[in-house]
């Protein structure tokens, strides 16, 4: 017989170190997979993790890819820290993009400095409203927020499908499922000529700073953390649980909405059906890999963004199947959860104890 017991003394240093262990194990695991597939593992890993960022363009693409992941994960950290399981960031991203994109389309033939801020604001509000649905249902009707937020992903994606095929489709676009191109005033300014990295990265960095301030310097942050540790304690302390649930969902939705609007006003430039390769779901991995810590999330978003780019480079140079990228993301989460388990629990061999008693 073995028994699993909770550890009482989890060292904080180790808590923040295990993500690195998970990444190292993932790289080792990836090497083994490449070897089994018949590739030179060192060469494959080089194309995976070094080649994509070996030039300025690659670095810009890494930041471009990490920006939405970081933004969404920052938002999710508020929810997850307070024991609210918002799984529907992808839907909030999509709805934010719909609302933001709608505003951008209103101004499709106009130029002016006021347009972009309006579009961004609309995106954040869109995401916020969409996140409020599971939050309100949870607080007032006791529904399960995991289920509701997840199901709403499909609602928003189908709504986007409907809009780009029907009422919002480009009148000159031969019925192809896409809207008009946004005007230049609705587009995120590019930071460097010839690179795609755009001003949206400042939104992500701003969110990091703000979330650090809220989580560690305000009463709200304190409430969030206490609720996450123990709901009973939070209630006993007299915290208004319902308001807090609404607030964390709103923050989370706004961040996802910003990520969506950043994509459509940044690299994409219009609305169509494929605005996000499931950033909202991948950001869950990012949030946990970053230990729900604002600065950890920056690091984690860069690592996960690299797995996307690496998968492309590895396929271009070595024709390694591109789906290894998803395998890598899965492995990161798996190893992280596995090492967390060993970190928080210890395994005791009870047989040994019995024998000890007998003698």
């Amino acid at each position, binding site marked *: 017989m073995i028994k699993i017991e909770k550890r009482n003394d989890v060292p904080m240093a180790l808590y923040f170190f295990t993500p690195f262990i998970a990444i190292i194990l993932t790289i080792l695991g990836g090497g083994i997979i490449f070897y089994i597939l018949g590739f030179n593992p060192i060469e494959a890993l080089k194309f995976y993790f070094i080649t994509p960022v070996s030039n300025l363009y690659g670095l810009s693409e890494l930041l471009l890819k990490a920006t939405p992941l970081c933004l969404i994960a920052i938002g999710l950290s508020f929810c997850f820290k307070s024991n609210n399981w918002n799984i529907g960031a992808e839907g909030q991203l999509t709805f934010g993009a719909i609302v933001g994109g709608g505003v951008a389309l209103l101004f499709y033939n106009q130029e002016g400095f006021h347009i972009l801020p309006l579009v961004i604001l609309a995106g954040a509000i869109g995401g916020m409203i969409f996140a409020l649905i599971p939050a309100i249902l949870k607080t007032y009707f006791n529904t399960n927020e995991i289920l509701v937020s997840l199901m709403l992903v499909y609602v928003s994606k189908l709504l986007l499908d409907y809009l780009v095929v029907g009422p919002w489709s480009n009148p000159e676009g031969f019925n192809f499922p896409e809207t008009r191109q946004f005007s230049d005033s609705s587009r995120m300014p590019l930071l460097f000529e010839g690179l795609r990295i755009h001003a949206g990265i400042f939104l992500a960095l701003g969110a990091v700073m703000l979330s650090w301030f809220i989580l560690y310097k305000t009463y709200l942050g304190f409430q969030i953390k206490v609720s996450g540790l123990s709901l009973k304690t939070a209630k006993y302390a007299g915290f208004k649980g319902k308001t807090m649930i609404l607030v964390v969902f709103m923050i989370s939705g706004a961040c996802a909405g910003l990520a969506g609007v950043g994509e459509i006003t940044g690299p994409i430039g219009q609305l169509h059906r494929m605005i996000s390769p499931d950033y909202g779901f991948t950001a869950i991995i990012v949030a946990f890999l970053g230990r729900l810590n604002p600065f950890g999330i920056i690091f984690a978003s860069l690592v996960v963004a690299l797995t996307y780019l690496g998968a492309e480079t590895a396929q271009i140079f070595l024709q390694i199947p591109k*789906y290894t990228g998803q395998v890598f993301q899965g492995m990161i989460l798996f190893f992280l959860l596995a090492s967390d388990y060993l970190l928080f629990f210890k395994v005791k061999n009870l047989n040994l104890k019995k024998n000890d008693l007998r003698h």
Partner: protein
Amino acid sequence: MYKNFFRYLISAIFLLGFSVNSNADFKVGFVYVGPTGDHGWTFQHHEGRNAVEAAGIKTTFVESVPEGADAERVIRQLAQSGHDLIFTTSFGYMDPTNKVAKDFPNVKFEHATGYKREHSNVSTYSARFYEGRTLLGHIAGKMTKTNTIGYIASFPIPEVIRGINAMTLAAQKVNPNIKTKIVWVFTWYDPGKEAEAAQALIDQGADVIMQHTDSTAPVQTAEKAGVWSFGQASDMQRFAPKSILTSIIDDWAPYYVERAIAARDGSWNQQDTWHGLKEGMVAMGPYNSAMGADLVKEVEQLQKDLASGKVHSFTGPIYDQKGNILVAEGKVADDGMLAGMSVYVKGVEGDIPK
């Protein structure tokens, strides 16, 4: 005088060196929208790539590239990593392809099914799938007992509407009572939705199912229900051996090989290609013996006539749903009209979704 001579000499040496060099390193890149194993659209492009490879030219492909922000990076990376010719094989790559083409004037780009050629190094190509639809219409018109043909359509773009119309016109010719029922699924690839659509059409009395989507689900549904069906993009016979009467096969291989060799040898130039049965870009799968020898013979003759140009899929008189004349008697629709087709012909039920 001498100055000019030297300038020419130097540039000649450079060009020579460059072309010899590029001959040895010549590489062709492919960007796919789906996995290579989809048994439909991407599978056929991959077969085309295999043919290029078999012709002794190095190739690379990237599969399942989303048509969003990622496409531009993948295309750019292929251009940056020494690929001289890049095929982008989905409509959604249109703007990214043109954008990257601008920055890499020495790389040639070939975009499938698009209409934008903003730079001299971008060509577009597509196939006259509607010629295949004419054959399907002829077969369907003869085979149906319920006079109802079920059509699973993806998006109301001209290509899809052209296929519906070509099929309906051909079916009406052999069976004036024919009705075409359409279900729009708004996806190119979603086995679940496609199967549901096929079932819905069968329930409405269709005994011939046709699809303008890429999965094998509709033919499998038809096989189970015991109705006729047609394969799409690739030869899907083995997925529904009893039900499939024939398949429209997209055969990109001859075009890909021709364009790759042209690019390697320096004779590549910009063009807008629209090939059909004649050039072999549209091919037909084996005809099901259940059609009977006479019908097979008829269809094979029609296939020859379409290829030779003796018969055109859109020969007047053609009327729209309200009875207005679209193409006058004795005339054929020109390519401009075909490319922008956005109304149903008489005999198609329902409205084009807007």
